[in-house]
């Protein structure tokens, strides 16, 4: 039997995701809406022996054609034929939440249930809502919920079941506008009557959208009824606006709110408004001085959590796969096959899975900050600074995380709301020196500059400067308009752990699936280069030959073939740059390796090597992550761009340095 479809709609920050998780539990699937990078979550729940498919629509404040999230939600409501729409409404902000509700009602949908969430919080704020009266005023069932405790969930399921079986009659109230506006709506509806569009869309909705000059509605008229009809309607609207002296959408919006305000008087009362904890916290958290101090501390904690727990776990998994390799090796007689399985496949899969704890912890920390409401404060604090470089305020989070590891940092760009912002932020992230590069930088600075921290700092500053300037450059070429900065600062609310863990688990799983192939293939290629036709160290492996091939180019920045080989291996993991040198110097390590390198390279060459290692390419896992979060082309573009930038910077430093006689 075909499952009945339940759509979950609502504003951001209303607890929609928690309700989704409470309804569906582990039986959910995260993917993308077809053709766009908007996350689509679907899940299944069972009630009274029947299975329902729940589709979690993107959280939106309205259903205009201006943002892809809103279009996705709107198109699903219009064309997805949901059997029941559950509209989650935040009891602490009913007026604004009902704006979306009215838009949904105006679409002509009938099977709607209002899930009134955060009722307890509203009471604390002195807001009293009578659900029975609210239901009467709106003409649809209202189920009060406390998503955090799961209260009211059974009643919601009952209502969904009843509605899906046609046992509930609804009569959604439609906003009424001033007589003049109503006349315009009627006039346009008449123009569309009897046409192709009238069969497919509710006329009142279409008329209102046209009055608001909605792009998609205009396209519909153009496509189905032709240019003349569209012109006729738009001319009419233009005349009406000239009479009013202001845009029609402005009039409609303000009258819609008036109508909602009138409705709320029937079921909502205000007690004394008390200052909440959030009000007090916000005096500190978005303050231009204290806010930054708190932010630095919060980031420090996230960093600590992700990396102090993540790295040891990564090490344990790495070791486990190493041991698995050792255990498997003796069982494979064929030497080439053994190499492929042990050094290529097992270590490749191992390195994919070893990122799992890091990515999981990162998502846990970020989801926590997002759900508790802190992320919005960060966006406010950093907006002024980062916007100058074409990035939104929230992009500070991936930038900081990049210092630990760029893989989770690239994944963290998901928290940015606009596709354009995500693309730019993940493009520049690999420039941020991760902890693997820290080991290379500190080794080289230790070798050539006696461990002078200022030299290391200079490299870090250079890397950040390159990242920010690149963001400024790239943001000009990525399509998508700069969105006006306006965000909600939600009430602070402890998130539900179940929801957090589910969410992080799904995200991490997705990472392993998507980035996994890239990392695996990369590992096999590098294994092949270093073992064929003869093992590395003999001077005749493909890796070394490649190094020699690159030498004329590297000479421009004062580096030799050894650097070439090392940089190739660095693609797998940046810390390999030093261990490759160790192999090329016949297995020297520690102080012996330092001495050997010092005797064959000048400090300037050492500096160039450190800078180039920092900038030259995303490691294979980061490339995999970028591909997972965007597409192949973008991952390739980042790679080519970084190689170019590293070459320019490397050549510049070497040429200027030698000219200055350094």
């Amino acid at each position, binding site marked *: 039997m075909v499952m009945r479809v339940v759509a979950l709609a609502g504003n951001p920050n209303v607890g929609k995701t928690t309700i989704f998780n409470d309804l569906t539990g582990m039986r959910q699937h995260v993917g993308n809406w077809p053709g766009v990078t908007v996350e689509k979550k679907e899940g299944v729940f069972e009630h009274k022996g029947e299975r329902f498919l729940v589709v979690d629509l993107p959280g*939106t404040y309205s259903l205009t054609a201006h943002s892809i999230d809103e279009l996705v939600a709107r198109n699903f409501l219009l064309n997805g034929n949901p059997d029941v729409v559950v509209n989650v409404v935040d009891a602490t902000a009913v*007026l604004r939440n009902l704006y979306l509700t009215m838009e949904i009602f105006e679409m002509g949908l009938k099977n709607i249930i209002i899930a009134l969430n955060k009722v307890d919080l509203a009471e604390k704020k002195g807001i009293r809502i009578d659900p029975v009266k609210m239901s009467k005023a709106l003409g649809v069932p209202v189920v009060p919920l406390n998503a955090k405790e799961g209260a009211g969930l059974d009643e919601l399921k009952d209502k969904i079941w009843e509605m899906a079986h046609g046992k509930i009659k609804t009569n959604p109230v439609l906003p009424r506008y001033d007589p003049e506006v109503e006349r315009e709506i009627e006039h346009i509806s008449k123009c569309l009557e009897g046409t192709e569009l009238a069969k497919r869309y509710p006329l009142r909705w279409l008329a209102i959208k046209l009055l608001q000059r909605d792009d998609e509605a205009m396209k519909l008229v153009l496509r189905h009824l032709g240019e003349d009809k569209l012109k006729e309607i738009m001319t009419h609207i233009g005349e009406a606006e000239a009479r009013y002296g202001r845009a029609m959408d*402005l009039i409609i*919006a303000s009258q*819609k709110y008036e109508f909602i305000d009138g409705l709320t008087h029937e079921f909502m009362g205000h007690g004394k408004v008390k200052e909440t904890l959030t009000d007090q916290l*916000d005096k500190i958290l978005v303050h231009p001085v204290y806010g930054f101090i708190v932010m630095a501390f919060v980031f420090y904690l996230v960093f600590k959590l992700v990396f102090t727990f993540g790295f040891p776990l990564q090490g344990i998994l790495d070791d486990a796969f190493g041991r698995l390799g050792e255990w498997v090796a003796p069982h494979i007689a064929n030497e080439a096959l053994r190499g492929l399985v042990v050094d290529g496949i097992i270590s490749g899969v191992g390195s994919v899975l070893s990122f799992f704890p890091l990515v999981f912890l990162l998502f846990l920390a970020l989801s926590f900050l997002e759900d508790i409401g802190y992320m919005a404060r960060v966006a406010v604090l950093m907006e002024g600074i980062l916007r100058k470089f074409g990035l939104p305020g929230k992009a500070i989070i991936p930038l900081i995380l990049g210092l630990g590891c760029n893989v989770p940092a690239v994944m963290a760009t998901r928290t940015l709301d606009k596709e354009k912002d995500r693309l730019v932020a993940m493009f520049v992230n690999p420039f941020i020196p991760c902890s693997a590069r820290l080991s290379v930088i500190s080794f080289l600075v230790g070798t050539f500059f006696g461990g002078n921290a200022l030299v290391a700092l200079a490299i870090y500053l250079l890397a950040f400067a390159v990242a920010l300037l690149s963001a400024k450059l790239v943001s000009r070429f990525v399509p998508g308009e700069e969105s006006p900065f306006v965000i909600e600062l939600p009430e602070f609310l402890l998130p539900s752990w179940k929801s957090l863990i589910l969410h992080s688990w799904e995200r991490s799983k997705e990472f392993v699936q998507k980035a996994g192939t890239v990392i695996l293939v990369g590992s096999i290629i590098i294994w092949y280069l270093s073992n064929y036709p003869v093992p590395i160290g003999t001077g005749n492996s493909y890796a070394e030959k490649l190094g020699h091939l690159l030498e004329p180019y590297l000479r421009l920045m004062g580096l030799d073939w050894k650097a070439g080989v090392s940089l190739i291996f660095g693609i797998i993991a940046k810390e390999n740059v030093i261990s490759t040198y160790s192999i090329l110097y016949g297995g020297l390590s520690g102080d012996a390796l330092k001495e050997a390198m010092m005797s064959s390279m000048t400090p300037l060459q050492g500096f160039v090597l450190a800078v180039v290692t920092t900038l030259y390419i995303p490691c294979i896992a980061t490339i995999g992550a970028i591909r997972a979060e965007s597409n192949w082309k973008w991952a390739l573009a980042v790679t080519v761009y970084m190689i170019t930038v590293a070459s320019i910077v490397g050549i510049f430093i070497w040429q200027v340095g030698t000219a200055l006689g350094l």
Partner: protein
Amino acid sequence: MNMIVPLLSLAPNERGVVVDLMGGSNFRSRLYAMGLAPGAVVKVLGNYPRGPLIVEVSGTRIALGRGMAARVLVRKL
């Protein structure tokens, strides 16, 4: 005398009624959806130099860029 001024010029704890939004349709529709439609009462919570303006409107807190706040006209209460 109730003056019509940009929202940006309000100091913390001052209130105003939105009378007009001076911007393109994308700008306007984003703001209505967040509750900033003509007729709405807005209270400024924070107005720090260079940072976004923080306001309370219809029971919710929102932050909006200074450029945007300059284009929201309010009648001071």
